[in-house]
């Protein structure tokens, strides 16, 4: 019999698995990481000793709950860690585990692929010592390391303040927090944010804590450039008061998150432009059903809503799946989950206003800035192709290879879309969607194929 498969063992995938198991359906749970938990609740290696409170702060209870769930389930379900899903087509997934390729047919699949940082490049961002905000957090949680001795944290989004707080608390020296969104935007966003008072309170707590501990926090502050020869030596930034320079040896930056949608794309899901995420997203109904009958979507991989929502969406999608294959599900539960998800969605709207997308990034980015770090395609290279008359992102990709490197546009895709839109004077929603290609991550030579 073909399996019910879940891709991704983060908050959404783990709750999906738990819900299916509770109804007697034993899924295959595929995860690229060695230990389940996903990114925000990334687990440290087994021989590390820090407590959950030390690692996850206010979220310790949620993180531990999720980890305990996967630990309790792992012997019962078909859990396959360190397994990359690199292709999906015709009702089957192509996987890679320890150098061996295999094909797994599925009857139904829940796609819970998560997200990565959304990156808007600046000059010097390829220097050693520059990382994404998510990377800075992983270095600390997963490896007990800071990304440098004197760290500048830049960009925008809730992760900016969380990472700053976690770094300072762990004893790292945070030389400045440079938030590109202005204070006025955050004040305007308050009514929307009040829909999740506890989450709002945490955000305010992090910021007050930083100020109380003498860490400079600047709002309306744009990172302009990272200077250095072989590694980071300083950053230049600007605000209403002018241009500034700050010595540091490490920088982390990002503007929120972007969904990992490649597998949903290869599975044939319909996509729609989502203004809130400023991205094309696979369409899902309130329950997590995609446009393809066998495919369900849950968590940040189908639109950024955060870890709490991912847990709920994972359970909701599993309930939808169960219902679709004829199982009886608790009649009240779907409504209750959907109502909670709706509340988080209102909060998410508020967050987007508070940490507004820097609309001027594309027009203010110099031609010399590297946009694609894989193949060093410059902003000017993209603009040249647009000036030749191309504006559809896949055509632009064909001409200058933006989005064609090893990362397949994960790091540069959002930025490239902004530059194409700006240069062609079209809305970013009307320049097309970067198509996913298999293999979605590089495969090694000498792959063994399982019979």
């Amino acid at each position, binding site marked *: 019999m073909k399996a019910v498969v879940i891709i991704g063992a983060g908050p959404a995938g783990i709750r999906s698995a738990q819900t299916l198991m509770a109804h007697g359906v034993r899924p295959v749970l595929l995860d*690229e*990481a*060695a230990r389940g938990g996903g*990114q925000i609740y990334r687990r*440290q*290696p*087994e*021989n*590390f*000793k*820090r407590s959950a409170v*030390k690692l996850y702060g206010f979220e310790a209870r949620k993180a531990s709950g999720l980890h305990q769930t996967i630990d309790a389930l792992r012997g019962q379900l078909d859990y396959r860690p360190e397994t990359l899903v690199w292709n999906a087509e015709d009702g089957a997934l192509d996987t890679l585990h320890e150098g061996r390729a295999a094909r797994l047919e599925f009857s139904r699949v829940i796609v819970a692929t998560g997200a*990565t*940082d959304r990156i808007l490049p600046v000059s010097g961002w*390829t*220097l*050693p*010592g*520059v*990382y*994404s905000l*998510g*990377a800075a957090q*992983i*270095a*600390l949680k*997963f*490896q*007990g*390391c*800071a*990304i*440098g*001795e004197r760290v500048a944290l830049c960009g925008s989004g809730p992760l900016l303040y969380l990472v700053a707080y976690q770094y300072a608390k*762990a*004893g*790292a020296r945070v030389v400045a927090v440079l938030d590109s969104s202005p204070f006025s935007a955050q004040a305007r966003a308050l009514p929307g944010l009040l829909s999740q008072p506890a989450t709002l309170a945490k955000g305010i707590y992090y910021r007050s804590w930083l100020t109380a501990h003498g860490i400079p926090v600047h709002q309306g502050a744009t990172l302009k450039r990272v200077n250095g020869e*072989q*590694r980071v030596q300083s950053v230049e930034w600007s605000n209403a008061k002018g241009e500034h320079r700050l010595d540091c040896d*490490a920088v982390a930056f990002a503007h929120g998150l972007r969904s*990992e949608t490649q597998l949903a794309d290869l599975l044939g899901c319909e996509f729609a432009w989502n203004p809130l995420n400023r991205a094309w997203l696979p369409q899902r109904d309130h329950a997590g059903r995609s446009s393809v009958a066998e495919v369900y979507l849950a968590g940040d991989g189908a639109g950024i809503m955060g870890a709490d929502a991912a847990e709920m969406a994972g359970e909701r999608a599993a309930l939808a799946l169960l219902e679709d294959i004829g199982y009886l599900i608790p009649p009240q539960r779907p409504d209750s989950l959907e109502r909670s998800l709706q509340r988080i969605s209102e909060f998410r709207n508020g967050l987007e206003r508070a940490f507004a997308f820097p609309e001027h990034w594309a027009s203010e980015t110099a031609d010399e800035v590297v946009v694609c*770090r*894989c*193949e*060093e395609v410059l902003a000017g290279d993209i603009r040249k192709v647009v000036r030749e008359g191309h504006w559809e992102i896949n055509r632009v990709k064909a001409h200058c290879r933006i989005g064609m*490197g*090893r*990362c397949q546009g*994960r*790091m540069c895709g959002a930025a490239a879309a902004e530059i194409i839109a700006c240069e062609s004077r079209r809305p970013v929603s009307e320049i097309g969607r970067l198509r996913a290609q298999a293999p979605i*991550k*590089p495969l*090694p030579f000498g792959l063994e194929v399982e019979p």
Partner: protein
Amino acid sequence: MAVLKRLAEGDRPAVEFTLDGEPASGLLGDTLLTAVLTCSEHLRGSDFSAEPRAGFCLMGACQDCWVRLGDGRRVRACSTLLEAGQQISREPGRTL
């Protein structure tokens, strides 16, 4: 010099490896990325400018932390755990 700075979990057993042929040492539970960047300043050279790179996303997405092992395999340093005796070499990259 180093890029990464250890803040916690320092009391783990040492794990010996070689970096470009020179003896080096990390800690049990380090990724290759952590082991290399706590004792040096880069992981690879860019394929298009040979400029130094030290990874970026640490979550297996950016593909900018590949290193080569003694057995010929190329692996992502951010998601591969250090093992004793590994011979890690950094590719110098290329210029156009």
